[in-house]
């Protein structure tokens, strides 16, 4: 029999013998019925791993005693490529780590490079178009997250509804930049293209329609009794564990902690929008079970979509005519220096550490992916749960394997 203790020293509580007396006076015995451990490979091709990832689950009957994620199946050396191509040429590679939120990745990289170029002044219109795109992309990303989460645990219908709205967002992006998934739209210095005539109005129309649809997802999936039974009280992540593992984004807020980079360490015009009361930060409350369970993490994403829509509205109200990109040469030479910039991606903090020696190519381009950090917690979160819940737990972390492996 293999050792059932995982790295955190957690032992399943069921394997101890126990006697208790029932109200009727009878005694009830619990016996240690543990058998030898079974190792189950979940993945690399399992649909619930959202990409090509393998989780090696050790279980004792139905009880998970250890989980070990194995990554690297999608490793494409993004950081090494960053040291070999020019600054602007690297931009399309940023699309490909978190491919569900490519706008946000473009933004994170652009802001990091711009931090090394203090002379660059980003026009106001560009900032607001960037915010509209980033927030719409956050909605699209959360739609996939909640849709596929329902799909993972057996609710197929909401997935189709989610993709209906996501399709519209993709059509909006197609109109502004020509691409539907990997945009490369937010460039160093601004954005690549101005909004075509009627685009901003259509965004406003989308916001109005989405508010109605949001209620649909809320009633259909979030408040579905079976769904709640599958996710509430499952995979509880206490706040202490979350902070220890460096968890950020909706996963941290799902544990009831009010921290969002857009509010607490604002960049672009988010600080201004927050002061104007344009958005709130939803946090988990333990409404349907324990604080920090799968349902809380899921519900934070559902509520965040509505807040993003409010932010888009604020941007549409405040946008004005003007330039869309600062004066940037075709081949960018970035002044020497080192900068770290972290932004709030749909999955947490996406950080870029860039180091320039004043040349056309980066010396080092480090990507800190939120999925990578958020996945590490599985090793501690899974032991002690039931095998049937493992899909619910992995789904609630909402990882994108392109980003864990980069």
């Amino acid at each position, binding site marked *: 029999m293999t050792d059932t203790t995982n*790295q955190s020293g957690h032992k399943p509580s069921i394997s101890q013998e126990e006697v208790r007396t029932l109200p009727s006076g009878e005694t009830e015995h619990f016996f240690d019925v543990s058998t030898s451990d079974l190792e189950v490979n979940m993945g690399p091709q399992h649909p619930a791993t959202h990409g090509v990832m393998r989780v090696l689950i050790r279980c004792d009957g139905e009880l998970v005693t250890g989980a070990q994620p194995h990554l690297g199946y999608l490793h494409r050396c993004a950081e090494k490529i960053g040291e070999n191509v020019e600054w602007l040429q690297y931009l399309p590679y940023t699309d490909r780590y978190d491919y569900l939120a490519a706008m946000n990745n473009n933004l994170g990289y652009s802001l990091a490079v711009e931090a090394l170029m203090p002379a660059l002044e980003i026009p106001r219109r560009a900032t607001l178009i960037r915010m509209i795109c980033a927030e719409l992309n956050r909605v699209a990303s959360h739609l996939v997250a909640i849709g596929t989460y329902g799909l993972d645990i057996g609710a197929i219908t909401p997935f189709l509804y989610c993709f209906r709205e996501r399709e519209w967002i993709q059509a909006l992006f197609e109109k502004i930049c020509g691409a539907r998934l990997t945009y490369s739209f937010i460039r160093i210095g601004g954005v690549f293209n101005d909004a075509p005539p009627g685009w901003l109005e259509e965004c406003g129309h989308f916001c109005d329609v989405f508010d109605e649809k949001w209620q649909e997802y809320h009633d259909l999936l979030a408040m579905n009794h079976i769904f709640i039974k599958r996710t509430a009280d499952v995979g509880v992540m206490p706040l202490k564990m979350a902070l220890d593992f460096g968890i950020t984004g909706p996963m941290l807020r799902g544990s009831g902690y009010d921290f969002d980079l857009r509010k607490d*360490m604002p960049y672009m015009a988010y600080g201004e929008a927050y002061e104007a009361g344009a958005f709130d930060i939803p946090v988990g409350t333990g409404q349907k079970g324990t604080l920090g369970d799968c349902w809380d993490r899921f519900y934070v994403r559902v509520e965040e979509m509505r807040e993003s829509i409010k932010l888009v509205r604020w941007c549409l109200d405040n946008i004005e005519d003007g330039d869309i990109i600062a004066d940037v040469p075709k081949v960018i030479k970035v002044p020497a*220096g080192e900068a770290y910039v972290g932004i709030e991606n749909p999955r947490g903090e996406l950080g870029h550490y860039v180091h320039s020696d004043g040349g056309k190519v980066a010396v080092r381009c480090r990507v800190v992916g939120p999925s990578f950090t958020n996945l590490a917690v599985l090793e501690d979160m899974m032991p002690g749960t039931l095998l049937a819940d493992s899909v619910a737990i992995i789904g609630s972390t909402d990882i994108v394997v392109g980003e864990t*492996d980069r």
Partner: protein
Amino acid sequence: MDFQAIHDRLQSIGAPGLTGSDEPRPANKETKDKGRGGTPFVLVEPAKLSDFVRVCRDDADLQMDLMIDITASDPAVDSEDLWVLVQLLSTTKRHRLMIKAILPKANASLPTCVPVYRAAQWNERECAEMFGITFEGHPDPRNILLPDDWIGHPMRKDYEFPKEYHGVSCE
């Protein structure tokens, strides 16, 4: 707190291993200094890095409760040093700190930060396989992104790309 206040605080509590700091500065033609932009950071002795981040986490004024990242950098082909870079964040005080520890390529080894932040566990594994840095006392020192039998450390600047892998030509 801004960077200067954090640095003063670290100095006043005698943070272990703190050797200096580096802030962005404009170029100076007289001293032929190219200047630099970006983020300020503190310099720390690699052997004391683990103790240093522990102080940052536990100090009442700093409260660096999140370790965002730990990574390394190979600054140049002919460089004899590797840099280990740590990003810390305080969610309560809303400030960041970047830490740099410079260690020689010939003896690239430093104590692990896993007892302080579990977040370091996977990042240190990645850092170890990509740069060939040994984190002493790491609880699980396996490769994370690369195959177990990979030869060399790909993120080093002098890395030579393999000509074949398991009989498959890469050329």
